[in-house]
């Protein structure tokens, strides 16, 4: 780096020596770059500022003004619960699968096909969310109906499978599965990155000691990648919390708070609630929806902060 700095300085000196025209070009160009950088920070701040300013009327509105609800808190709380439930469910399903997929690509599949397999996993991330929504309601939901009926009959004593099982498949469990598919490529991309960076020395050392491949993975690859996998899971969670269209299309909503995953009556999520109600809303109802969007923004921001903080801490180590 020091080497580069000297040459940079030399370049700047030469440029300075050869007259003002070049220096002006440099100044304009570097100022443009700084402006672009500042624009981005301003954009992010702008998102927060405009959501606050447009959501503010709903935050301060009296209970009489809000359509059918006592206060903003009692309106947003069940939605926040639904958002968290869907996100956590998706994460619980996706993370083990994503770790397995990452291990398969980095350590088990032949190196020649690994690249192609990685591309296929990335394609999962490229598919628009509305198509996941269609797939969930027309394909996965109906296919999951008999399975959910079985869960109700055999495991109904567990509160989350209490039922009565939905006959349309528009349940929280199906939403969780679809969201899991959507966040799997994100989590597995992070896991893949770190698994492939496991020091060769450690892996070869384990194998030289006679470890089988699984013992090598368990003793070197997994401990090395643990904190990155955790932060990858948080990034996936952030994505699942903000996912809109798939949830809006699939979930059959009643608004209550329940952990029951397989029934027809589910809590909605913040994002889906906005998408479903925004087109028909006006006046204070719009401010109310924007205020819930602000809550979602804060929740996902906190999740992402945490994830980045874990990554940063792992890198320092």
């Amino acid at each position, binding site marked *: 780096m020091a080497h580069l700095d000297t040459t940079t300085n030399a370049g700047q000196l030469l440029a300075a020596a050869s007259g003002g025209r070049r220096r002006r070009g440099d100044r304009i160009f570097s100022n443009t770059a700084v402006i672009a950088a500042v624009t981005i920070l301003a954009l992010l701040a702008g*998102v927060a500022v405009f959501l606050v300013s447009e959501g503010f009327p709903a935050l301060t509105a009296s209970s009489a003004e809000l359509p059918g609800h006592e206060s903003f808190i009692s309106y947003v709380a069940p939605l926040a619960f639904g958002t968290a439930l869907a996100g956590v469910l998706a994460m619980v399903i996706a993370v083990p699968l994503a770790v397995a997929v990452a291990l398969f690509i980095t350590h088990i599949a032949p190196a020649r096909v690994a690249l192609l397999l990685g591309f296929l996993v*990335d394609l999962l991330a490229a*598919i628009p969310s509305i198509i996941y929504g269609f797939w969930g309601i027309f394909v996965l939901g109906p296919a999951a109906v008999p399975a959910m009926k079985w869960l109700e009959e055999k495991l109904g004593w567990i509160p989350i499978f209490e039922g009565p099982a939905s006959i349309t498949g528009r349940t929280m469990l199906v939403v969780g599965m679809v969201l899991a598919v959507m966040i799997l490529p994100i989590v597995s991309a992070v896991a893949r990155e770190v698994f492939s960076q496991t020091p060769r020395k450690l892996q070869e050392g384990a194998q030289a000691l*006679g470890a*089988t491949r699984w013992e090598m993975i368990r003793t070197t690859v997994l401990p090395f990648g643990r904190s990155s996998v955790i932060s990858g899971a948080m990034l996936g969670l952030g994505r699942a919390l903000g996912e809109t269209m798939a949830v809006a299309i699939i979930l059959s909503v009643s608004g209550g708070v329940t952990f029951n995953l397989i029934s027809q009556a589910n809590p909605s999520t913040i994002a889906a609630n*906005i998408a479903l109600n925004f087109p028909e809303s006006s006046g204070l109802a719009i401010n109310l929806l924007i205020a819930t969007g602000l809550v979602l923004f804060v929740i996902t921001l906190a999740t992402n902060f945490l994830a980045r903080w874990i990554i940063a801490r792992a890198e320092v180590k």
Partner: protein
Amino acid sequence: MTPPPDSGLSGAPRRSIFAVEGGGGTLPSWAPYGAVAGSLVFCAAVLAALGWFTIALMLVFGALFSVLSIYAWSRAVEGRRRAKDRAVTMAIVASFGVAMAPLISLLYEVISRGAKGISWDFFTTTSRGVVGGGAAHAIVGTLVITGCAVVISVPIGIMAAIYMNEYGRGPLRRALTFFVDVMTGIPSIVAGLFAYALFELFFGPSIQLGIMGSIALSVLMIPIVIRSAEEVLKIVPNHLREAAYALGTPKWKTITKVVLPTAFAGLVTGVMLATARIIGETAPLLVTTGVVDSLNADPFQGRMQNLAVYAYNQYRSPGVMKQSAYDRAWAAALTLIVIVMILNVAARLVYRRYKTESR
């Protein structure tokens, strides 16, 4: 380090990582495939006998049974540790299969269902004043909205990446790195609400314009462009910059004439992938661009339809001829997926070409 006097290889009773337990034999090389095939046949036979046969159940039970059977077989012949290794390997391969199943099912369904709604009229007519009709207005809208988003995002994104890689130091650079990461996590609906709130403040309530959608999409696209551009700029070799400086080239000319051309294909790849990511967005456009039946190619005037929102509305309010509306929704989905796939594959091809050239 001297080796331990008695290594487990000679059959010592001490349990260590060296120890070979069990029979010490080896399964034939076809053993995993044999276990999978045997398990599938066995499960198919049992399920058929019980009258529960479906492909999905056969695959699920077949996968479970494969893991168990390879474990039992290997344990008998090779010992506990090798058996565990084989079972875990089998389970990981099965998990990969589980993860890929949705992709295959989804592509199959979109293609088979979408093909029904695809026709010449679908691409050439609008749904203005007719029942059904085509999606030409939505396709034009998608291209205009996405095009504007690209025009906004690419200069800002690439200049910011240049700042981060070529100029940046100190707190602004650190803040930028951190907040770009944070920005990639903004939910798409929040980006839509931001664009709506921004325009509502200046133009009054219930405003809906194509350009609002583009701004919402830019919020999502800029961080992706920066991330990929930064990666590409980082791998431009320093000796190219140094050579340029040695010739007395000013920094801005070094960047525009040396660094950017070297990184060009990589930058194009990044922009194409970012475009593929935003072209199918629905939620932010639902709240910003509105719903309309007729063709509108002017992003600064009036509502604008796009493919994803079109598909959603065909599904949400199908009207009397429900099935044909669903067909159109799937056809729009198929069109979107084809565009996304073309962008993705083309991006990889550009990148591969670039990689061979840089050698």
